[in-house]
């Protein structure tokens, strides 16, 4: 396939779970690498030492301010990538690394970890810990369509990605409290239970039709707010769900039966 886009996976302070989630597309990952994207940088999977020019940088993990190399690499990523995606809760919101306070055996001075958006402009957020494999796949397909598709495909991909771009502008802090502040306090919650299902650490239960957040357990990954139908909801995109699912399945070589 001509016109493949170039993608890199940039690893900051994260657990590699987001990369594993990308790999969890199984044969879908091969399809993406065969037809749509060349993986030009990925410490775990590709032998490339320095961050190259690329279309899309998927950044996993937060930045340790005391780690000179990390700070340099995130700046370099911004300079060399057309689109920077915060892949996962750590890159987007700090996630569990928010709770670090140094004390590691050989680097006790490593104590401040910030989401990448605190140091550079980020284009797209993919929250959650880790983001679902299918969500990463959808964003890959849409990013490809946005950069290489025809006009209709560009319009659809733009509409699909817009809420994730808006999330990137919303801020670099997330917490279960977002449900309180931006959904319940705003008179928008209708008790569907999506937040409870999306929480990776089961910090959310539904009590009398509203989320109850165990704040000791919340890791600040941003999944619940991003997944809530009352955080963002585009009729233009979601009303076309059947066609979009078919189009993505088609792009991934599935369906058609």
């Amino acid at each position, binding site marked *: 396939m001509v016109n493949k886009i170039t993608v890199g996976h940039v690893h900051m302070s994260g657990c590699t779970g987001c990369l594993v*989630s990308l790999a*969890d597309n199984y044969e879908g990952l091969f399809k993406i690498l065969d037809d749509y994207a060349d993986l030009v940088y990925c410490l775990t999977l590709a032998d490339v030492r320095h961050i190259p020019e690329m279309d899309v940088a998927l950044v996993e993990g937060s930045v340790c301010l005391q780690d000179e190399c990390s700070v340099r690499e995130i700046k370099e990523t911004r300079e060399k990538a057309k689109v920077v995606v915060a892949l996962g809760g750590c890159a987007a919101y700090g996630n569990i690394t928010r709770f670090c306070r140094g004390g590691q055996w050989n680097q006790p001075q490593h104590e401040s970890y910030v989401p990448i958006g605190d140091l550079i402009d980020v284009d797209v957020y*993919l*929250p*959650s810990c*880790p*983001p*679902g*494999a*299918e*969500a990463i796949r*959808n964003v890959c397909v849409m990013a490809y369509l946005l950069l290489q598709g025809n006009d209709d495909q560009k319009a659809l991909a733009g509409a*699909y990605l817009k*809420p*994730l771009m808006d999330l990137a502008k919303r801020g670099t802090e997330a917490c279960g409290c977002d449900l309180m502040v*931006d959904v319940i306090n*705003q*008179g*928008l*919650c*209708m*008790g*569907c*239970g*999506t937040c*409870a*299902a*999306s*929480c*990776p650490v089961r910090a959310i239960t*539904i009590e*009398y*039709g509203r989320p109850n957040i165990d704040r000791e357990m919340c890791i600040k*990954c941003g*999944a*619940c707010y*991003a*997944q*809530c*139908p*009352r*955080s*963002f*909801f*585009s*009729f233009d*995109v*979601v*009303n076309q*769900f*059947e066609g*979009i*699912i078919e189009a993505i399945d088609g792009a991934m070589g599935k369906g058609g039966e």
Partner: protein
Amino acid sequence: MVLGNYKTAVSARAADADILKCSQDGGIVTQLFAYALEEGIIDGAIVAGPGDEPFKPEPIVATSKAELLAARGTKYSISPNMMLIKEATRSYGLDKVGIVGTPCQMQALRKAQLYPLGMRKVPDKIALAIGIFCMENFPYQGLESIVEDHCNIKMESAVKMDIGKGKFSVYTERGALSQIPLGATHKYEQPGCHVCLDYVANLADVSTGSVGSPDGWSTVFVRTKKGEDVWSKAVAAGYFETKDIAGVKPGLDLVTKLATGKIDKNQKTLEERASFGVGKGLRNPYI
């Protein structure tokens, strides 16, 4: 988009007498899930099962007809069915999940399929989504006030609740019927319902509700390829009696009227929210 996209609309009721005995109207949801379970179209369905208090729904994953039967009938309070959508594919290990829900829950479901951020392994396991018509919903305490304070019926002695023809009705186990004007219930509605722009579950595979069809029957919209496939097979297998919607009273005109009314009213609420404060507004979830 008042009635959403649909391929066919019919008036229907379940053929199974056991299902009809305690169903809300035509027993469509229970019958269609029962059929889908029998045929292996779904491995289980997320439904509003009985909770620890009367008429307080609790989402459950039903994997047998008996469980479906125990959950039949409408409970006019919040059942967070989406809560179990990931659990159903994980702890219950279902590969083909059925789910019933209100229009907002169908919105949540389709958003979860298109943006599955915290919904790992969910998107391709949704085998059948049934939507139910919904004007608004009540928090459980609100429902209790309506039934106990306004209708003068103890929650424990109610056997069925019903909204229709401008009235909220409660039937008791001793055969009594208590009714109040629907207007008296409005203040107990949950606020989140007032920004909803969907009455007939536009995003479901199949959506159903009593409005438009005669008593004991339900109006059914078949919306997606998946929905059409399951519905046509179920009808062909004799699981439903159907009537042409054009031939029944009050028909789709009433559905359109109620849907338009809900959408217009809530659209207005959204506009009012935009300038709710002084120079400040409340959030619009759709932009």
